[in-house]
């Protein structure tokens, strides 16, 4: 579905007419990401990150498929095949570093995409399904990234796998059998490595599938925008192509420059040195930490240090860690404010920035060693995280008095450019 004023696909070339009759795939692309998709004209740069996440996935799949051609999924050779890829495969070092840093950049753009959604209320009706599918993608990404980190079979790979599968071991009664079943043994070993490799290859294509659903669900109401005011007519929109393809092209350039700086000049900056030591079940690293993109959740996991009556602290930590992500699925119903954009919500706006700082602090603490005073700090920060989404946000949306909204997207745009232009103010800003 689309807005009634969307441009129609009219092939002129006889070959394209022929294809359109048989399989209207070009029509689908035209309506999805071409001139046939009208998009609000006032999107800011934060709306670039969806396309950039798609670009990051493509980079991961291309480099990953090439890496898989040189990788041996066996605990005896995994570490050395990765090293040989780095040393003896043409541009193997490039593929490996691009894949490892590409994962980090995928998470960077997805986190920015999620925080964009949080600030501008993109999760609210009628776009709840877009948000829910986005969270499914996020969960799949986390699973894929975790399993990918195990594949080089370094020390952090091995001990990370042990700690993360150990989370399931915290479940009462059935926990340990589940952990053994997941690993295919009592500790990470060849069976675990093989299944992680198989799933690590599979899941990106599942992610690609859910992305199609995510975009499909997005196209039903159309894209949100920084004002949060719905599209009212043709004057509020521009065709996706060429307007947003041009803007995304520029965004992709900036993204690739940032990516290249890290990839070519500091490729191990985000990694842990211990992962250049081959996995050794007999030697536990001093501090076991996951990759940086899991640190906020890792901090929440470790913040629980006191048993709650019969519930051991470890199980509480596991429940809280999963809850910290799952609660996002309820967000469209926790935030009941009719105003979408944080721009027009003065109270929400302040708490949003507190949340951003809180999550950054949690991230820092998740990478710090599990000792005082870091544990106490993560307890306070984790408490705020839960309080923010589950208590503060529902209360704000109930009692906050929002600022007046612009009458339409076009009105907001004209107010913005009217000010800078000065000479021709068409519609006075309210």
């Amino acid at each position, binding site marked *: 579905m689309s807005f009634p004023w969307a441009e129609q696909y009219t092939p002129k070339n006889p070959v394209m007419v022929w294809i359109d009759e048989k399989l209207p795939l070009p029509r689908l692309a035209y309506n999805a990401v071409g001139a046939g998709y009208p998009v609000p004209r006032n999107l800011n740069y934060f709306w670039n990150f969806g396309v950039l996440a798609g670009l990051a996935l493509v980079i991961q799949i291309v480099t990953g498929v090439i890496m898989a051609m040189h990788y041996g999924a066996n605990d005896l050779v995994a570490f050395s095949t990765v090293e040989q890829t780095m*040393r003896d495969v043409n541009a193997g070092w*490039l593929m490996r570093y691009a894949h490892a840093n590409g994962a980090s950049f995928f998470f960077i753009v997805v986190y920015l995409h999620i925080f964009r959604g949080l600030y501008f209320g993109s999760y609210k009706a009628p776009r709840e399904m877009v948000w829910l599918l986005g969270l499914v993608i996020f969960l799949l990404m986390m699973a894929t990234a975790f399993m990918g980190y195990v594949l080089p079979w370094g020390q952090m790979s091995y001990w990370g796998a042990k700690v993360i599968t150990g989370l399931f071991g915290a479940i009462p009664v059935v926990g340990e059998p589940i952990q053994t079943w997941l690993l295919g043994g009592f500790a990470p070993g060849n069976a675990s490595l093989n299944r992680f490799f198989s799933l690590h290859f599979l899941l990106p294509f599942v992610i690609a599938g859910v992305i199609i659903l995510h975009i499909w669900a997005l196209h039903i109401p159309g894209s949100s925008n920084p004002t949060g005011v719905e599209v009212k007519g043709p004057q509020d929109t521009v065709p996706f192509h060429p307007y947003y393809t041009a803007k995304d092209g520029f965004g992709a350039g900036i993204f690739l420059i940032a990516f290249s700086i890290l990839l070519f000049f500091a490729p191990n900056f985000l990694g842990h040195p211990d992962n250049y030591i081959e996995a050794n079940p007999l030697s536990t690293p001093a501090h076991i930490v996951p990759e940086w993109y899991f640190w906020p959740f890792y901090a929440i996991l470790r913040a629980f240090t006191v048993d709650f009556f019969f519930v051991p602290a470890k199980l509480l930590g596991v429940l809280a860690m999963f809850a910290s992500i799952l609660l996002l699925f309820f967000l469209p119903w*926790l935030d009941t404010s009719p105003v979408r954009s944080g721009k027009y919500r003065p109270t929400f706006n302040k708490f949003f920035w507190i949340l951003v700082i809180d999550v950054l602090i949690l991230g820092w603490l998740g990478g710090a060693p599990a000792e005082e005073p870091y544990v106490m700090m993560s*307890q*306070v920060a984790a408490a705020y995280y839960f309080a923010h989404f589950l*208590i503060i946000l529902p209360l704000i949306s109930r009692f906050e008095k929002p600022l007046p909204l612009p009458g339409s997207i076009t009105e907001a745009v004209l107010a913005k*450019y009217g000010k800078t232009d000065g000479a021709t103010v068409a519609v006075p800003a309210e």
Partner: protein
Amino acid sequence: MVRIGAFLVGLFFAGWLFISFLIGAVAYVSEPPVPTVEHEFHKAPKHVSFSFDGPLGHYDRAQLQRGFQVFKEVCSACHSLKFVAFRDLAALGYNEAEVKAIAKQWAIKTPSVDPATGEASTREPVPSDYFPKPFANNVAAAAANNNAIPPDLSLMTKARHHGSAYVYSLITGYQAQPAELLKAFPDSKTPEGLHYNPYFANLNLAMAPPLTAEGQVTYGDGTKPTVDQMAQDVAAFLTWTAEPKLENRRRAGLATIFFLLIATGLAYMSYQNIWADKKKTA
């Protein structure tokens, strides 16, 4: 209903975390954590500059050759270098004949099979061979080294924080255990057979000081072989073994970023051009 449930869950998690925080804070104040000897006496690596520092740095071929010589004459007696092959030495500036000679004359032989009897034997390494390991297995390595297994050095400088400086600091960092340490931590006397080194994570290292005297190695290029110089050279060599493609990577990076800057500039101009009519007032 959703909001009532969320409120209760939020209250539970936030409340219990707050109680945990209070319990932890009381314990922290009443019984402040005792600093460990590692926390008090472990040192970050020394500051040392290398030719490959910074985004545009290059390896110094002469230094790598000197470092290789230190590895050959000192380190290789105990440490393996399993991810590096003799053929890789061409990158240090050796020609084909030199690489062949280095392989042929290597003190440790490559494990092989006697073609006549099928029994295990050894042969002279050839350039396509990886550096042979000094010990047949970990048990032999541990038995010969006071029960400590000398780690493989191929990736050592990437397997430690600030690895190049770490290797240099460790080699030059041996010292007598400070008197203050023994006063503050009487139980932490360096055990028999270990060596005190503040740059090592747990302060006591099984490896004896490997470079002890000036002139331990005689350099062919006339460089004065002080302990400090040899330590720097071998740290540079081990940086190369860990990251042999460093120079290719930086060169490719400069070309890529140069291309991307132009492409992004053009993309920006095209974006401005396309949007020109939409950014003006009607």
